[in-house]
Structure formats: structure tokens, C-alpha cells
């Protein structure tokens, strides 16, 4: 220690002369551009998935309803409310937000005398920082979840275009778990699924590798998981929250994965259906399609004696007689149906109600009747030549293929139609052409231009991979016939399909013509229902909707009290809606009979 040590500290006095470093107006200080300040939420973009609420470890977020925000498909209608008494501004909510709607401003001062105001709904309260550009946003190339789906492996076109081998291979365990991991359990899909399946719950079962639990969840709302796991129209995926980040979950394939893992012998034990107590009531079901099967299953669970009458020789309805085997192998249909059979449901095939047995007779012999007879009448274009014997209806041909009947495929085929049924018949015929002639000469022509073709994109892509030519935006004019033989199809340009009000009202340019050579034409432009099994008296009592479907209430009860109706003749057309109807009808019948 020295004398210097006494004097030196006095140099501190020099600071008296300098400008103070403190900020004079701290409230006006601009925070850094990345500052994690008060939250902002783009309420239009937000879908109310609640992931922000889920990650907030402070439980600062509550999802609340908000005036002006409607609950709709893919949007819960709720929006996050943040409690600034709890929030620690970690911004994990911003990082996980599925839509990137939630961000932060760089504002950090907010003076209020009412403490309750600090529980606020970002974006809904006109805060000064709502339009502030700066503030924390989820960083680029930074994700706290995997935005993209696990690709499904399919067999190569060369392997599949001559056979009816199943195209989609299905997930391995590792793939399924990885895909299931992506689900944020928001439940938006449940609302959209016609059967309101417990989707996040069965996806969680996949994640936990608990197939028994998965199967139990599936069967709560869907007794045809092998079928649906393959061909469901997966409306749920169209609302999946994860699509905003990247890809929707592969919900359908995960369902298939569960069903594929559990051997049929174990179903009864897992689903605890070994000892169902029977009652003495009898229910007749017309049609062994998805609607009928679903109704039968849930009625059997309730103890009813169920008998299904089916016109064709096997069960499944359009899933067997419409959907080609390469999309849905018959043994998978059998797996679902056999389990339903094992619960004591009786099947009587080759029995057409209205012809072999009257509906009145069913009414007499049974306590209630459920009809799910589907759409089996092909619609015709009614153009010149469409009554030629080599001009077919898609549904008729598909039924014959499923029945194992041999079909006279010709060398050159034109399919009219732009939907999935057109794709199904075209791809079926292309396989048969390949088997018979070693090459494909098949054109699909649709009214719709490619961007509005109703067929699924993957169907269009895969058809092309199988060397099918697609000619969109043509209207069929006339089938050319020479010497009694089909020579091809004359078409004219279709300019638009729908008018301004969105009604089907196609416009053509007669001057733009094309001719597609063919010796066989197939029409796939839609199917209609055949209600001829109703007597005239009954038909007069059966109320119909404006859209020419059978009118039913929430329990699928028709205007004839003992008659419950579901499936394609009520709504849809798709498998899962039919299943949902079957389930509803089972509950409806149970109510109806217990009130009797």
C-alpha cells in the first residue's frame, strides 16, 4: 500500500464533468428488433389449435371464444388469451405456433390501473403494438416439430401396372411412430371427420406403440378400420393443423397401421366382445356396404339380433364391387367383415329386397329395418352411340371384375369422366390391357380442366405413371360407330363447367373438335340410387331432400318410423360418412325400440 493508493481514488471526481449515461426517458427507449415484447396474433391466420397453450409451462394461455370468430372446419373458433401475470416472455408459444400467426412486438411498457386488463387476447384489443413490425418472430429454419410427413412407400409403376397388387406398402413401425410424433393433438380433425373418430388418441397409441389401445379407439367409432385405413377420403387431413407448417398428418395411413398390426384372432379379447348379452329384438339390414356393416356392428354390440340381406354374392358393397383390389385388397375387407360376423351378425347373400323378399315382409318379421343400399345405377351421357353394347358403365365393369368375371377388354379404350371412379375403372382396364396386349392404350377425358378435375391428385399422377393419357376439358359429343363397331369418341372443347352461381352448366366451343380413337367406351360420370325396392305406397310416404337423397333425422330415421336409412342414399358418397350413418342409426334404432 502506498500514498498513491490514498490519492488515486479521488480521480473518480472527474466523472462529475461527464454527461450522465442513464436514459432520460426510459419509456421511449426502442427495444431491439428481436425483443420479446408484448404478443401479437393475426386472428385471421390463427386456427385456434391451442398448441401455444399446450407448450406454455406457466399456464399463461387460455383458449377462449371471441366475438366475430366462428367455429368452422379447421378452426376451433377459440383464440389464445395471455395472462401477463404469469407469462415469462419465453416465446415458446411463438416458436410452436402452427400457423405462425402468433408473434411478439418489441413493446415493453404498458401502464394500466386495472390488473385484469393484463389478461388480454392478442390481436383482438387494438393495442398500439398490433401493427408493430419489429419484435420476436419464429426464426427461419428453426422448428420445434417436424413439419413434413414421412413419405409412404408405393410399389413402382413397372411392378404394379400388370397386376392388382396393393400399391401402398404401409408404414413400418419406425415410420409410423415418427409420423405419429408430429401430431400436436389439437383435435381439429375430430370435428371434421364424419364419424368424429378419436384421431389424436389413436395417433397417441401409435406413438406409444400400444396397438391394443389404438384398436379400441378405432372401434369406438369405426368398425371398418382396414377398409378406411386404405380408402378413406381423409377429410380430416384437409383440416389438420400441421398442414400450416408443412404437411398434414398421414392420418389415414396411421389408422391402417394400427389395424394391420393387430391379428384378427385377438380382436374379441382386446375389444372385450367375447360375451355380449343378446336381447330378443331382431333388426334387418338391407345392403352389406359400409353403412349396413357399421349399423350391424353397433347393433350387435347392443345385443340385437342382426341379419343383413345383400343382393350381391359378397359383403362390402362398393368397397368390394367398386374400389379396385390394388387400392383395397379383398382379404382386408374380409378381415373387417369377419370380425363383425363373429359377433353373431347373420348374412344372407344373393338376396335382393324388393325382388326376392319384399320390404313389407321385412317389416313384418323384424322390429326395425336399416337400409343402406348405395348408388349402383350408372349414369349415362346419353350421347349418340352410348347405347352400343361396347359402351359400358364403370360400376358394372368394376362389379364384374370384383366378381371374377372375365371382361372383353379392347385394344383402345376411352373413359369418360374426371372423378375417382373414372380413374379406378381406367386403371383397372389398363392393367387388363397390359395383361392381354402388353400395352396400354387408354384415354380418360373429362369435362373439367385439370385444375378442377374432381379426382385426387395422386390418382391422376399414378394413372399417368401407368401410361394412361388424360385429356381434360373435352365434352363428349358422339360415339362414332362404323359397321356396328365403335371407332371412337367425338369431343368438343369444354370452356367451363359451372356457371357464375356455381351450378353445373357446361359451356362448349363447338369449333374446337377432337376425335379419340377407341373400340370400347366406358362412362364414369356418376351413379344414381335404385329405390325400386320401395312399394309405390311407401315411396309416396318417403320424404326426400332437395338434393334427391332420402331425408332422415339426426338418428338416420326416415319419415317411415321403423325404417332407418344411411350411407350413399342419404349423404356422402364416401365410406366414412356411411360408417357414421350406420353408427347413428344403431343408436337411433336402440332409442326407437326402447321407447316402444
Amino acid at each position, binding site marked *: 500500500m502506498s500514498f498513491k493508493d490514498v490519492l488515486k*481514488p479521488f480521480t473518480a471526481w472527474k466523472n462529475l464533468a461527464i454527461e450522465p449515461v442513464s436514459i432520460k426517458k426510459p419509456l421511449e427507449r426502442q427495444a431491439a428488433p*428481436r425483443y420479446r415484447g408484448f404478443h401479437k396474433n393475426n386472428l385471421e391466420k390463427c386456427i385456434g389449435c391451442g*398448441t401455444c397453450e399446450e407448450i406454455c409451462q406457466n399456464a399463461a394461455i387460455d383458449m377462449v371464444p371471441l366475438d366475430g370468430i366462428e367455429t368452422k372446419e379447421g378452426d376451433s373458433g377459440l383464440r389464445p388469451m395471455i395472462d401477463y401475470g404469469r407469462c*415469462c416472455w419465453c416465446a415458446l408459444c411463438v416458436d*410452436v405456433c402452427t400457423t405462425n400467426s402468433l408473434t411478439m412486438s418489441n413493446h415493453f411498457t404498458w401502464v394500466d390501473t386495472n390488473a385484469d386488463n393484463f389478461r388480454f387476447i392478442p390481436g383482438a384489443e387494438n393495442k398500439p403494438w398490433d401493427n408493430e413490425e419489429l419484435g420476436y418472430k419464429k*426464426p427461419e429454419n428453426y422448428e420445434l*416439430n417436424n413439419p413434413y410427413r414421412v413419405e409412404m412407400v408405393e410399389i413402382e409403376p413397372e411392378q404394379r401396372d400388370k397386376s392388382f397388387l396393393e400399391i401402398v406398402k404401409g408404414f413400418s413401425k419406425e415410420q409410423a411412430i415418427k409420423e405419429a410424433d408430429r401430431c400436436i393433438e389439437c383435435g381439429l380433425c375430430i370435428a371434421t371427420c364424419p364419424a368424429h373418430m378419436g384421431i389424436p388418441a389413436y395417433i397417441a397409441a401409435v406413438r406409444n406403440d400400444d396397438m391394443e389401445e389404438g384398436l379400441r379407439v378405432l372401434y369406438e367409432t369405426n368398425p371398418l378400420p382396414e377398409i378406411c385405413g386404405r380408402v378413406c377420403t381423409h377429410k380430416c387431413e384437409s383440416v389438420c393443423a400441421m398442414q400450416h407448417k408443412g404437411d398434414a398428418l398421414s392420418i389415414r395411413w396411421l389408422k391402417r397401421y394400427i389395424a394391420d398390426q393387430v391379428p384378427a384372432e385377438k380382436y374379441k379379447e382386446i375389444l372385450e366382445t367375447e360375451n355380449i348379452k343378446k336381447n330378443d329384438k331382431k333388426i334387418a339390414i338391407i345392403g352389406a356396404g359400409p353403412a349396413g356393416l357399421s349399423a350391424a356392428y353397433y347393433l350387435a354390440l347392443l345385443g340385437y339380433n342382426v341379419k343383413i340381406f345383400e343382393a350381391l354374392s359378397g359383403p362390402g358393397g362398393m368397397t368390394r364391387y367398386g374400389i379396385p383390389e390394388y387400392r383395397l385388397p379383398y382379404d382386408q375387407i374380409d378381415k373387417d367383415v369377419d370380425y363383425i360376423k363373429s359377433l353373431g351378425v347373420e348374412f344372407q347373400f344373393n338376396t335382393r329386397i324388393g325382388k326376392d323378399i319384399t320390404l313389407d315382409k321385412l317389416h313384418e318379421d323384424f322390429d326395425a329395418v336399416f337400409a343402406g343400399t348405395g348408388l349402383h345405377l350408372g349414369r349415362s351421357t346419353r350421347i349418340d352411340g352410348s347405347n352400343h353394347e361396347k359402351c359400358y358403365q364403370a360400376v358394372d365393369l368394376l362389379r364384374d371384375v370384383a366378381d371374377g368375371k372375365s371382361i372383353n377388354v379392347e385394344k383402345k379404350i376411352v373413359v369418360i369422366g374426371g372423378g375417382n371412379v373414372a380413374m379406378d375403372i381406367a386403371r383397372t382396364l389398363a392393367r387388363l390391357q397390359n395383361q392381354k396386349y402388353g400395352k396400354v392404350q387408354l384415354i380418360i377425358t373429362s369435362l373439367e380442366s385439370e385444375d378442377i378435375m374432381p379426382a385426387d391428385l395422386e390418382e391422376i399422377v399414378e394413372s399417368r405413371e401407368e401410361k394412361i393419357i388424360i385429356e381434360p376439358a373435352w365434352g363428349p359429343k358422339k360415339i362414332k360407330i362404323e359397321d356396328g363397331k365403335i371407332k371412337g369418341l367425338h369431343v368438343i372443347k369444354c370452356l367451363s363447367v359451372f356457371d357464375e352461381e356455381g351450378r353445373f352448366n357446361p359451356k362448349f366451343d363447338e369449333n374446337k373438335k377432337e376425335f379419340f380413337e377407341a373400340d370400347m367406351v366406358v362412362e364414369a360420370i356418376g351413379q344414381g340410387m335404385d329405390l325400386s325396392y320401395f312399394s309405390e305406397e311407401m315411396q309416396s310416404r318417403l320424404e326426400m331432400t332437395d338434393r334427391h337423397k332420402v331425408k332422415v333425422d339426426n338418428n338416420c330415421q326416415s319419415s317411415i318410423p321403423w325404417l332407418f336409412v344411411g350411407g350413399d342414399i342419404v349423404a356422402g358418397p364416401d365410406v366414412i360418412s356411411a360408417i357414421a350413418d350406420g353408427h347413428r342409426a344403431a343408436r337411433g334404432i336402440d332409442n326407437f325400440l326402447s321407447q316402444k
Partner: protein
Amino acid sequence: MTDINKHRDKFPQKNPDGTNIIDLKSGKFIKVWQGPNHPGITGNMSLELTIQGDEIMECKTHVGYLHRGFEKLMERRRFIQCLPICVRIAVPEPDFNEYCLTSTVEELAGLKIPDAAKWMRTLLLEMSRLQSFLMWIGGQAGAFGLGIIGQWSNYVRDLVLDRFEEITGGRIYHMHMIPGGVRGLTPDGFEKRMEETLQEIEKVMKDIETTMFNNSIFKKRSIGLGYIDPSMVFEYGVTGPNARAAGIPKDVRKDYPYLKYNELDFDVITGKNSDAFTRADIRRKEIHLSIDLIRQMMVKMPKSGDYMAKVPNVLHWKIPKGETYVRAECTRGEFGYHTVTDGSGYPRRINVRGPSYTHAVALMEKLAIDVNIADTAGLMVSLHTYPPEIER
């Protein structure tokens, strides 16, 4: 002034092991509680002092005033949700919690993080050391009556917080490290602003060096105070500047290099006298070392590239069963997380090793003996302890 040492033989009498014989009934001793009354760096814990005159005869440390149960709380949180909690374990230097937590999780999950993220983490940790030392130096000076130093050092510490704010969006709790990487790299023009900050710190440090380290009061009160014998370093598990002041070159950055420390050029700073002054001097030099390391990083660090690995859905992230210990050199010494996982989505157990635990609880009881009661605060600060990390 009475020279106490002249009368050493009269009071207090010593036990054969050298400890003081305390007979409270004799009327010669008073019990005094120091703390837990100020919510600052050395508050939130208290010292039960037995004094004779103004000298401490016995010291018992008491903790438990700041227990928030964070370790336990984390067992009920998903791994990602532990982040906003863990930072609170060492409030004035939270980044080491982020680092230790994320890297134990990454290690157990077998996750490799991108190089740029490693650089970013090294920078954040060194910036954190810098601001923590700057905060400490004010505390140390203040405890010996030099209030102005804290005002100067806090000004430059605030500039470091500005730089943190630029990178992370937060000033105190940065939460910039995430299992898998970091939340972003440095913004445009950062190097320039960092350099300006470093120069400002150097300028202020010059003043501090003159007024604090060349100050008879500070010297008189700190030289010889709280001598830590080198043998105690291992007995008590002393780490960081407290150990280095005793001449033991313990520094996790060198002993177990982590992140990018083996790509940086530096020597471990040690001292000889192991008293409060030497410890202060080591920390002063550490401030300059941090400045130097940050400058090195500003040159070497990548300005772009991946900074986040691909992670699974953090809401369901299950970490395989296992356990690991990750340590790092914080301003107080070895900071570590012992993380145990059971294969679920939640940590089974997280045990935080905060160096303050050893320094403030066990060591303080020993060092306080025979110290003048007016120097207890200065002694405590010279051990650089943060009670929040004692009580997780």
C-alpha cells in the same frame, strides 16, 4: 484502535483443534443474525454469527429462504418446458443453466448440434461471464464502501445486456439455447456494436482499476481477508476464481474443454495469496480475458449457416433412459447439471451443481471465524455467491 491480536491469548480460548471455545453463558458472546434481509446477491441466506466484541467467533450458515423447488418442478415439465424454469436457478447468470440443461438433453438424446450453434453458445456463455463479473465487481466494491464502482460497472453491464437483447430478444433471461441448437445467430452489424461495448468496458475498467484496486481502503480491508488454504480447495470442492486465487489452476474451460473453448487462445489465470484481494484481482483479469475471448469469437464465429438441428415434436419428445453430467466454467466456478432420464417425456431428476453451494454454505462457516463483523459482507461477496443456485 485496539489491536485485537495483542490480546489473542486472553479471549477467546481455543479448543485443541483450533476452534474457539464458546460459552454463551459467560456473557462475553453475542449472537447476531445477518440476513436474510436484503434481496440482493448475498441476501436470501443468513449467517448466524456468534461474536465477541466485533469479531466473529462462530458462523453458521442458513439457507432455505429462497427455495422455489425448481429441480422438482422440472420433473413435472416436458424437456422443452424446463427452459423457462432453469434460467431462474442462477438469476444473475442464467445462461449456464440453459447450456447445461440443453446439452445434457442433447447428449442423452444423441443429438448433434450445428457448429454455428456451438459458437453462439460459447459467445453467450462468455458474454454472460462478462456481465456477471461486472455486476460482482460493483457488489464487492460496495461491500467495502465504494458505492460508485457499482454505478460504473452496472452501466457497462447494461451495454452487455443490450448486446444480449440484440441476439436473444431478452436482457436477463435469454432462453436462446434450445435442445438442438440456438434460436438464431448474431444480427447484422453486431460485431461493430460489440466492439464498441468492449471498448467502453475497457475504459470503465481503467477507472475501476485506479479507484478500486489502487485504493487504500479496499486494500486494507481485503488483503488477508478470507484466506483459503490450498488444501481446502480439494477438501471443500472449491472451484473457479476462489480456487485459482489459491494458485490452483482449475478452470473447466481448460480442464474439460466444451463447445468452442479449445479453438480459443487463453491461459488460466491464477493468483498466490488466496485472500479477498487476490480473488478480486483474478476476477478483474477474468473481465479482460472475457473481452479478449469475445474479440476472438467475433473473428472466428460463422455469421450464417444452420443453427438448429432437426428435433422431433418437442411436445412429445421422449429422451432415452440414462444419466449424464455436464459442467461449464461460470463466474463462480464449476456449474453443472446432473440429468437423469427414464425414457419418458419428463426428466426423472435434475440436480444442479451451483458452485455457491460449496462456497457460501460450507466454506463461509470456516472463513468467517475471527473476521471483523463489518467485513462479513465483503468476505461473502469475495466468494462470489448467488443464493438462488444454492436453493434450486
